[in-house]
């Protein structure tokens, strides 16, 4: 499903060069639930962003669904993300000016859908994360766990094959974190969604199919 080959990422600032990823090769199978662990600053987010086509590698090839992504234009990349990928972030990144329902509808705005369809799909996605009675709320009126559930609903509303989650439980207490983890596992099991999740929590990582450890930009396990 996702194939990374010899990925390198170098960050250049005026004074220093950071080698954030050093020759990473990784295959993620269709339907797999993969977790990534490693100390802070070892390049986990960088790796996830490259998988999600949010950032380009300095070297190496990213293939998704057997398609090379190197030479895609801005518009093609946007389209690709819209169709195939869903993102969940540690700090939710909901749009505070929009109500829950509008936040969840967002990915559908960039597809050919009618307002009615959007509303229907968004309600379904919210039902899946157990938030049917909060659709008119604004994000700031919700708890952290609820916000992350809205973010998950947004990530799945377009039925993507892949979900990339960067420390989705990082800002939550363990009870809420477990809830979120349950939802992700259910998505993986019932819908066959491929999930790559960065986490700091060994327990959660143990619940996934496979664990990849990074250290200083290199894969150690």
């Amino acid at each position, binding site marked *: 499903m996702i194939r990374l080959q010899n990925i390198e990422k170098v960050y250049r600032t005026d004074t220093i060069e950071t080698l954030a990823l050093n020759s990473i090769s990784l295959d993620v199978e269709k339907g797999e639930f993969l977790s990534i662990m490693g100390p802070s600053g070892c390049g986990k987010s960088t790796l996830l962003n490259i998988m999600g086509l*949010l*950032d380009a590698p300095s070297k190496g090839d990213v293939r998704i669904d057997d398609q090379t992504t190197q030479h895609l234009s801005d518009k093609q990349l*946007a389209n690709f993300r819209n169709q195939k990928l*869903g993102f969940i972030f540690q700090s939710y990144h909901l749009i505070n000016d*929009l109500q829950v329902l509008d936040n969840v509808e967002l990915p559908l*705005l960039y597809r050919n859908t009618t*307002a009615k369809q959007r509303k229907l799909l968004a309600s379904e996605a919210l039902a899946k994360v157990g938030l049917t009675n909060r659709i008119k709320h604004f994000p700031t009126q919700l708890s952290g766990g609820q916000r992350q559930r809205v973010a998950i609903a947004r990530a799945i509303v377009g039925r993507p094959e892949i979900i990339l989650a960067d420390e989705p439980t990082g800002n939550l207490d363990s009870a809420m974190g477990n809830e979120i983890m349950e939802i992700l596992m259910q998505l993986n099991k019932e819908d066959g969604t491929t999930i790559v999740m960065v986490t700091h929590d060994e327990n959660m990582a143990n619940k996934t199919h496979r664990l990849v450890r990074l250290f200083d930009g290199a894969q150690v396990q």
Partner: protein
Amino acid sequence: MLKNYFKIAIAVLKRRKFFTFISLFGISFTLTVLIVLTAFIDKVVGDDYPDKKRDRSLYITSIEEIGKDSHSSSPPSYYFLNRYAASLKTPEKITLFSGFSGTNTYINNKKIAINYKYTDANYWEILEYKFLEGKPYTRQQIDNGERVAVISADMKKEYFGDVASVVGKYIEADNIKYKVSGVVKNLPITSYLLYSDIYLPFTVAKRDYKHKAYLGDCMAILLAPSKRDVSKMHTEYEQVVSKVPMENGQFTSIFSHASSYIEGYVDTGNEKSSGVTIALSVIGGFVFLFMLLPTLNLVNINITRIMERSSEIGVRKAFGASSRTLVYQFIVENIILTLLGGLIGIVLSLIALYLINNANLIPNLDLTINFTVLFCGLLVCLIFGLLSGVYPAWRMSKLNVVTALKAQ
């Protein structure tokens, strides 16, 4: 899609009340000034009372004599116009009249200022003054040198007070008494070619109005039989002027043109600089400068405002918005903002015009918003919205997704 843009636009406007206020204030204030300005120009240049036949009239308002070391320009004299303009073949009718000059008169020991102007009989035929009472003086009366006058409604009120009829009464100006033959509707002083408080026949002028000199204090309106003949009339006058003998050895060339109302109105009396060009560049430059500042201000505000939303930009990009879609979204948002400012501006303009009209800053100048003015105003708003929105939108759309998501 548009509905969603609208939702977020309104939400953002509500959230940043101060920015919104500054932006809206900038836009609406600018627009108000522009609308008042255009209303003013439109009225001053566009109001065709009393020269309703403007489209087939040409105006001779100046003459310029140029020599090696000398240069003089002023309105032409009665003598010049009578000799070279009055003899043209194309015009159906020609009127000669003087510019207005001021004098004082006393009524009940109170001093009042009077502007007076001399005309011929054709003046009242070419120009369609509205007579509130009485009628113009006749050719016969002029030839007889009768001391008769047509006065404005304002003058009637000021000199005679609130009386029903003043025809046949006498009005004194410069120690001479004139018998009032008619009262006409006022016109504002901005119509300065035709404006006066009292109109008198040339033949009662104290000065020798037929004095032989080219420069003087007169103007002429040439009325063509139809619109088609206007250019022919223009050419004929050009030809006549080109053959006019020099007044004396001092000068080597003479210029005088029969021009349209607008050209005549803004005539600078200088052959080398066109009044219309100057007027247009002055107005254009003013409008440009006046719009530049709030536009820059808006650009600035927009950049700040958009950058504040970098998380939103990152999210939208991550979920499938292309840079172009985002540029489009932000421009639409900005146009919504400017149009809102436009609406407020229009309301403010209505209030401003109402106040200006009521304060009577320029007597008898009744400013109104018309369709043209409104259209220009909204167009200006739109351009405004585009100008101030495109650059910030373009800049933020270039933002890298990861960077956008990181910035908080």
